[in-house]
């Protein structure tokens, strides 16, 4: 997400558009929408992206109200337009016969898409998802029901409590969903849970430094305020919506499970476990063989096997700190 935002900035996206993008991308995605439908209910499935949209648009409009990108002069784009899309080089005399057939090309692209899904997308989520799963289990076993009823049962205090938990920590949108389901079953109000689902992914301690670089100090403060205020408003509103529709949240949670046959559930769970084990193996091997301990020589080329394939680009960096630093500078 953050490298993408950095590259948008480089290509001349204005600050408001960047803030909007920085809110909606972590708060919602196709993967988190799918898992919300599975573990929560259709109302939450709609509310999460909707609240993300409103938060993002608000943050962006506030930013562009204060810094009019048009009044600042239409700066020529830092990159010539032609370079924005990879065009086939003119004048290459490749005979048409050597071009891959459309069928094999689309097959290769399909392979790329699947590889991206299983390696990059799941690779980004997997650690958080395991943590989310464990936390959901712990909540189910240990969180006293009267506590969550009392503190998280609804009202402004519940929203603020969830904000206090959600804002400093990072948990990706997909991984926060099992935690949300566990909290709901323990009697937390849907609104309070929604606040957690919005504030958890949108803000955290480590992304702050990147936000400051992209938006500036005041811009970051405004971003945080907008996320906090809009999330709480949506939370309060959602708690009014359920009684209005005559729905008891706890009764409808996870109803989507009945849509999937058992063999498919066991099959896909097995597949995910194997995929996760592969990621773990890959991570351990990578750690042991390639990374010199404790050094961060930014931009120092590593061996080809040391290059990280991330979002279809190759990064050669000697450590994670260095990788993040490069992305930030880019």
């Amino acid at each position, binding site marked *: *997400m953050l490298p993408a935002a950095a590259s948008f900035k480089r290509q001349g996206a204005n600050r408001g558009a960047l803030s909007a*993008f920085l809110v909606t991308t972590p708060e919602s*995605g196709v993967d988190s929408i799918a898992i919300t439908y599975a573990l929560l209910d259709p109302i939450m499935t709609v509310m999460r992206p909707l609240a993300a949209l409103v938060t993002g648009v608000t943050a962006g409009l506030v930013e562009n109200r204060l810094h009019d990108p048009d009044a600042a002069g239409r700066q020529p784009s830092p990159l010539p337009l032609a370079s924005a899309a990879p065009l086939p080089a003119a004048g290459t005399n490749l005979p048409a016969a050597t071009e891959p057939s459309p069928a094999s090309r689309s097959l290769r692209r399909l392979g790329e*898409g699947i590889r991206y899904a299983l390696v990059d*997308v799941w690779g980004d989520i997997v650690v958080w998802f395991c943590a989310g*799963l464990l936390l959901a*289990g712990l909540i189910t076993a240990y969180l006293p029901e009267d506590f969550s009823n009392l503190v998280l049962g609804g009202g402004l205090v519940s929203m603020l409590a969830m904000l206090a938990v959600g804002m400093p920590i990072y948990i990706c949108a997909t991984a926060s969903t099992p935690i949300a389901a566990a909290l709901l079953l323990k009697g937390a109000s849907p609104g309070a849970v929604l606040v957690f689902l919005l504030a958890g992914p949108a803000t955290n301690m480590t992304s702050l430094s990147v936000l400051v670089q992209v938006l500036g100090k005041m811009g970051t403060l405004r971003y945080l305020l907008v996320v906090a205020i809009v999330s709480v408003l949506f939370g309060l509103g959602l708690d009014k919506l359920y009684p209005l529709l005559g729905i008891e949240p706890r009764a409808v949670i996870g109803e989507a499970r009945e849509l999937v046959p058992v063999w498919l559930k066991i099959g896909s769970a097995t597949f995910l476990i194997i995929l996760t084990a592969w990621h773990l193996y890959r991570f351990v091997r990578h750690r042991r063989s390639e990374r010199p301990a404790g050094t961060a020589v930014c931009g120092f080329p590593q061996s080809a096997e040391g290059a990280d394939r991330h979002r279809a680009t190759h990064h050669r960096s000697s450590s994670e700190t260095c990788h993040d630093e490069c992305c930030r500078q880019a």
Partner: protein
Amino acid sequence: MNDITTISIEMWRILLDSSPYIILGILAAGGIKIFVNQQIIVRHLRYGRYRSVFKAALFGIPLPL
């Protein structure tokens, strides 16, 4: 021991319920990656004080992470 059983059963239950949808979700993310050219979208984010904000917010909704 009893607690560990509760936790494990709950984790397994959540994994069973969610994994078909997770696989669907990440494959959809892969589909977006190959069918949507991000560069073209970035061009939309350059101009327009308000338009660019709406477009950027909408664009970010389906993107994973």
